[in-house]
């Protein structure tokens, strides 16, 4: 029982945790990431300790917020995007913010009282080496992708469990029209589209770049830049590239908002301003791989590999909220059942 005794000792030693009375609770999705020095700087300047709570995927995070609205688990929430904003407003879990960051124009507006922080595009990525080797021409539109030549080449995420998957479904509906979109999905099913639960499974087990068998994957327009940034050798060209087809690009805008019933209002306001400050706007581009919402923010050199598409296909926010669940159900019956 020596080991148990050691454990008992460890338990005593380890359970000492300081609690912070002056703390700002920030609810965020699991991709939230900022340069550490900036966070330390914020804590020093505002005199509050940041307590970041990660609640999973953005959709999951919002659901947790809705579920606990009687006793909110946070004071401020980051990561509600334009595909979720209508649901969040309808559920009445946010309080409007009216500080300077709200007054200043953003490159991409989100909703009144919700401050846009960053934006990006969900889009198809392809493996350049695979297409160069196979000699197959790139498809020029979504219809071509459903032809036998592109059989078994595409992997997408399940819109019921993944936010990029949901965004991609939305773009097909906005781009092709609802009926045509589901018709296209039905043809994609016969053409062997692979569905994964989330982005990571798609990118790291199905994509040809990472040992899978599918050279086209639903990802972000910034992913090719991240591939360069996180490549092992110094490379000047990304191994992947964007495939911007009509009806395959969704513009995602993420924002920060006050939680209804939250405390620490002043610190929460400071945090919102902080997210729109120049250093954060510049830094988040290579930590979260999104574009800055503040006009005039310097774009890091590596983002040159992340081309912005000339067009994107978003359904109106209120129809996302009202029809979204039905679209997902219909997608499930068309593609999976």
């Amino acid at each position, binding site marked *: 029982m020596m080991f148990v005794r050691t*454990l008992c000792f460890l338990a005593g030693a380890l359970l000492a945790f300081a609690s912070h009375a002056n703390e700002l609770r920030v609810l965020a999705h699991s991709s939230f990431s900022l340069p550490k020095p900036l966070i330390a700087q914020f804590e020093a300047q505002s005199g509050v300790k940041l307590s970041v709570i990660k609640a999973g995927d953005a959709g999951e995070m919002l659901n947790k917020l809705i579920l*606990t609205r009687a006793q909110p688990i946070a004071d401020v929430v980051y990561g509600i995007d334009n595909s979720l904003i209508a649901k969040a407003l309808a559920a009445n879990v946010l309080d409007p913010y009216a500080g300077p960051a709200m007054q200043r124009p953003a490159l991409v507006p989100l909703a009144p009282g919700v401050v846009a922080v960053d934006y990006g595009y969900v889009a198809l990525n392809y493996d350049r080496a695979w297409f160069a080797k196979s000699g197959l021409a790139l498809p020029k539109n979504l219809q071509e992708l459903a032809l036998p030549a592109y059989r078994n080449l595409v992997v997408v995420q399940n819109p*019921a469990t993944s936010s990029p998957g949901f965004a991609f479904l939305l773009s097909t509906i906005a781009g092709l029209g609802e009926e045509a979109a589901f018709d296209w999905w039905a043809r994609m099913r016969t053409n062997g589209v692979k569905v994964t639960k989330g982005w990571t499974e798609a990118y*790291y087990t199905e994509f040809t770049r990472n040992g899978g*068998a599918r050279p086209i994957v639903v990802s972000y327009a910034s992913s090719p830049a991240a591939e360069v940034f996180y490549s*092992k050798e110094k490379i000047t060209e990304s191994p992947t590239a964007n495939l911007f087809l009509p009806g395959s690009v969704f513009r995602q805008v993420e924002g920060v908002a006050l939680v209804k019933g939250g405390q620490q209002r002043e610190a929460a306001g400071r945090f919102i301003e902080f997210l729109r400050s120049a250093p954060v706007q510049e830094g988040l581009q290579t930590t979260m791989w999104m574009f800055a919402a503040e006009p005039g923010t310097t774009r890091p050199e590596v983002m040159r590999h992340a081309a912005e598409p000339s067009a994107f296909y978003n359904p109106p926010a209120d129809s996302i909220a009202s029809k979204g669940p039905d679209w997902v159900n219909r997608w499930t019956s068309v593609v999976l059942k």
Partner: protein
Amino acid sequence: MLRRFSVGNAPGHFGPARAWWWGVLPLGFLLLMVVAPLARLAVEALPDLQWAGISAMWQDDYLRWRVWWTVLQATLTCVAALALGLPLAWVLARFEFPGRVLALRLLMLPFVVPTLVAAIGVLALWGPRGMLSAWWGLDLQGTPWLLLYGNLFFNLCLVVRAGVEALEQVSAARVAAARSLGATPWRAFWRVQWPAILPWLVSATCLVFLYCFSGFGLALILGGQRYATVEVEIYTLVAHELRLAPAGALALGMALLTGAVAVLYAFVERRLATPGRADGVARRRPTGAWQWCAVVAGLASLFLLCGAPLLAIVVRAATAGEQVWAVLLDDETLPAVWNTLRFSALAVLLATLLGVAHAFAARRSVWLRAAAFLPFVVSPVTVAFGLLLLYPRWSASLPLLIGAYALLAYPFVANALGAALDHQPAHLAQVARTLGATPRRVFWRVTVPLVLPALRRGMAFAAATALGEFAVTLFLSRPEWATLTTLIYQRLGRPGGANRDAALVLAALLMLLALLAFVLIEQAPRRARVLAPVRGATNVPA
């Protein structure tokens, strides 16, 4: 019949009269961590409850296929795991050869590896551009074989470890008696050894079934959405659609189904429980070509099923290059290692406490035995949402985090210990009592040493669960609580070759830490040897 007279079978003064006392702790824990959150969620779901909608759900062909497929794949895995695991356990329990103990410990590693990393390892071998599939010209992508392989990779260790322990408890004298009375080795196996190891195998098979049934892991990634399990449906309904009523109905249906398996298991185990003997069959060095062949074939199949994907990860981590290895000294990695170690240590401590209490409480009660499966039976996402609703203030607190780890880990301790308590040889305790030992002394000097190996095995599994547990991130978590597993998933949440390789390096580190933990937990204490004048007690697994 023997049981009725065996005072020693019950651990002295911890006998049946006081057994319920032991149950207070684990049952209270289950009440707070599982039952109350689920009840709270049910209250939340009540206004939306429509019987029409729920009965329509059960008539949905797609959902029926899901349930049917879930049952089928779990059953297939159980059959395959038994067919492969039993011979393997035989080899590991009956033969003494170099590397035997190491093989037993390495066997635990699949349990630790995050599912996504395991999937990468499996695909490196069997994927479309995998080493082995290219060699043999196979394409397993999109077939159920890859999925079954994945299930075996994770679950074989459960069956083999239980099998080894069971075979070590088989009485050598009884086997010898059967043989000298003219039974063939086969007959001796079926009539003497098989009945003795059956309860252990039933227990392990039930665990495998429940794991595959409610599984959320590798099989899903390898199988894709077509082979997804019901748990995924529940996850979708709760986490993404917030439709608590249908999710609750589905979760309840699943819980009833798996609960039936758990009760059945508890009943079978209680029926089969017979006190064992302390004269284990001695291991011997393999002699002759056949026996060596058996050892080599056993180890080779073990390697192919469980070792190769892990080796693929280690090889890729080792060849990743200096630039990627730098991640080991990253300012994120060291705190994550520390978190992994302290959370796991605390979780194992709590799990041991709960597991021991539960095992003692459940000695006489089928229902209490079945209750130990509760953490496996309920859907983790559903519980997570219930906890959030019930304890919003505690949602991002350390006690809840550790509690969640322990909840998933403690059934291993309870089950392993429960089986061992059933099989304690009765006569040793009786002899000790006759010689004047107090019940307390009998408990500490006879019962505890006899069940210690099982307790260690349970703790090792609990540690493996805690070290590799990712389900906990379903709760709210804080960045400063990042463990190695969360770091790995964080890396795999961003594109780029360096991220992927860093994830593999971190996974290799996690495996190394886990191996160290197993060695620490399962290390044979010297005292056990002093205490072993009875032949066979030295055969207690190291």
